[in-house]
């Protein structure tokens, strides 16, 4: 998320559609995005159907959508992401949510993690938080809010016979970075490590956890998220 290398990135403009039904939050998002020169907000919507129509109209690079909107006020944002996966696969989707529950993040990524981000709403005022995610999904990556990953890592560490018990504290930090969707370079930067050290840590983690390493960052996110979210026996079918 703190992948801020504007010098390297050629200046481009992201065309964005925002969907948020709460007026005050929508105004907040407007102000956050107005600060950014690279962003052009094509339309503000306030429910699922107007969002999908706006996407059709504007073909945006990225959609920033509330998770819970009319008509049902449940998980419209995630359903929008699933629909857009089919209808507009090149559009990135940043779901902004008030739920820390990893359930929603996992649900979002189950359909495929490329060009998807899950952020907590209260963090979008933070510098580069929203913008970083927009850039990431636009370029095919994935982002998960660190607060969500934290819940997963904590609960997974607590579990009996947890495989995370075998990881060093440093390795756990690196794993959290992986789950947040960071590139090796980004992890190295946040943890003040060399890129090489990060790679070594990742190899060790994936070996200890018996996960297949993947150089594709977004697939790596899903693997680590699902691993972290695993709790006990998987659901059985109805008896």
């Amino acid at each position: 998320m703190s992948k801020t290398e504007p010098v390297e990135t050629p200046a481009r403009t992201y065309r964005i559609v925002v969907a948020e039904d709460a007026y005050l939050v929508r105004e907040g998002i407007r102000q956050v995005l107005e600060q950014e020169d690279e962003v052009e907000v094509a339309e503000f919507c306030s429910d699922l159907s107007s969002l999908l129509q706006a996407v059709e109209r504007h073909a945006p690079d990225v959609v920033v959508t509330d998770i819970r909107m009319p008509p049902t006020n449940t998980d419209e944002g995630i359903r929008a992401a699933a629909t857009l996966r089919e209808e507009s696969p090149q559009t990135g989707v940043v779901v902004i949510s008030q739920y820390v529950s990893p359930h929603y993040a996992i649900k979002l990524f189950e359909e495929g993690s490329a060009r998807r981000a899950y952020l907590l709403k209260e963090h979008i005022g933070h510098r580069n938080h929203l913008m970083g995610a927009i850039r990431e999904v636009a370029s095919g990556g994935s982002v998960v809010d660190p607060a969500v990953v934290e819940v997963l890592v904590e609960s997974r560490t607590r579990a009996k016979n947890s495989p995370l018990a075998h990881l060093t504290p440093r390795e756990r930090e690196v794993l959290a970075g992986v789950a947040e969707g960071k590139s090796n370079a980004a992890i190295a930067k946040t943890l003040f490590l060399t890129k090489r050290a990060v790679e070594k840590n990742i190899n060790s983690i994936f070996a200890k956890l018996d996960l297949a390493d993947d150089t594709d960052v977004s697939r790596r996110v899903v693997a680590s998220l699902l691993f972290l979210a695993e709790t006990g026996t998987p659901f059985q079918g109805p008896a």
Partner: protein
Amino acid sequence: MTSRTPVPEDTTVAFEQLDVADEAPPQTARELEADRDVGEPSLRPVRPGIRRPTGTEIAVVAAAAAVAAAAAVVVVNGGVTSNASGYALLLVLNVFVFVLAGLAWRRARPWSPYGLALIGYGLASSLYCLASVSQPLVFSIGVLLWVPGTFFVWWLILAFPSGRLDNAGRVVLALSGAVLLLGCFPKTFLATSMAPAVPLARCAGACPANPMQIDADSSLATVFRHIDIAGTSTVSLLILVLLAVRFSRASRPRRRLLGPVYLFSAILLVAGGAYAVGVSWLGAPPTANDTFGFAVTAASILFPFGFIAAIALAYAYVGAALGSMVRELGVNPSVTGVERVVRQALDDPRAQLAFWLPRARRYVDRHGRQVVVDEDHTSTWRSRERTDGEATLAIVHDAALDEDPELIEAVGAETVLALENRRLQQDLLDSIAALRASRKRLAAVAAAERRKIERDLHDSAQQMLIAVRIQLELTRGQADPESKLEHQLARLGDDLDRALDELRSVAHGIYPPLLAEEGLPEALTEAARRAPVPVQLELEDVGRLPEEIETAVYFSCLEALQNAAKHGGPDVAVTIRLWWEPHLLRFSVSDDGVGFVPDQRREATGLTNMLDRLGAVGGRISIRSAPGRGTDVDGAVTVST
């Protein structure tokens, strides 16, 4: 009705109180006070014996004693009878047996003419003593008293139990009257002296001469003699046949009444017939004459015992019938069941329960059909009237049971009790069902209300705080980095984050959005993630269930999970299971913690909470625990599909 009746009286009071409670619940304190005075009579023991004799009864017994004594004096001082003391004793016995039987009958059946008839006959039988008087005319009249005496006994037999004769009875009695008159004719007008038929009354020497003799034609005497013998035996036989026919045609309750009286009557008739045939006609030797004579004497002394036996049998039958009724009615019987038991108790297979319909103003049977009373063969017992003046229940029964009042009263009272009991039980069940339904509705309303509050929190308060949080961060971005303002804004941001966390957990505690959106397994998975202790999950995909059931199960599991975390000790691990059994959603929360003695921590375990939650949706829960053995919380909810 003095000391024998406390039981029925109390029963009545109980009913009246029930009725009052039904019709007019509000009572003033004074009324209640008065009620208590009525409702708590000083406790008197139920005496199983017979009630004390009334003044009339004592007078009757005294009269019987007086006439019996007088008769005995007459017999002993008459100087005619050979075995004077024996005959005197026989007369005394006869008087008392009939008088006592009559008193007993009158007590049990005050409306029946038989009480008075038996008493009257007993008192009058003392006149047989005249056959011991030496004055010839008095002696002869004394001997002839046998004729009206016998006639009266036959009437007693034929008119039983109503005191009225049917056509056949009238014919037979008329015939027997004629026979008696003809039979006594030769004795009265042709015999030089009359010999008493009773062996004990035999004259010491020659009997006093017959002053009424008009001729001594022995051949004429023989003709009448044969008429007497043939007539008496024929009439005896006729009466026997009539009794047999009546008995065989009688309903079972009627047979119970007729049986003992008919039995002793038959003994008397057989003995009399045999005497007539054996002694007089076949010319049996004098010793046999005595034997037959004594048999008749014994049979006539025994005869009143038929009435006593009938009453005793009726009482014994009431006891047995009530006993079996109480047993049979033990387990909340249906109305059909009650009717069956009533039929059994009355021994009347056609007895019928009839229920009063106040608005239609008629009695109906258990199928709701109007009850038609056949006045000739049935009679109707009605329960005591309620305050509105109508008997609620009637029993249509065999008319013969009118002669069995203790039985019908006792069975009636027991039936009213059983039906009242049944109604109360039904009312109770109804109100339990209503309570259960209302509890379930409340639970549903509560669940919906919780969900609404959660929505409001998420959609308004939380959104506003989030908007403020975003604005705060934007403002901080404009402040000079590392300035005092920037630090203050950062601290404010942290505080706001904590407020948001707090709000989130409050909203979650009220109604987890995941539970509303995804159902139990997802919500429990999330709860396990947030739990401060390791949780193993074995959750079947139970699908979606009514909101109130999901809420009850979810919060019960959460409560158990929190208990395990709080009290289970440092190394506790929890397993939550959720699965289906047919029509039953089951769940369990087990831990391997330190455990406890269940009784001591009932409150702390939140068992009451869980019981309330699950009870409201018709579920149940149990907790098993012991020190060092962990804790198992087991729950089940019936889910109608």
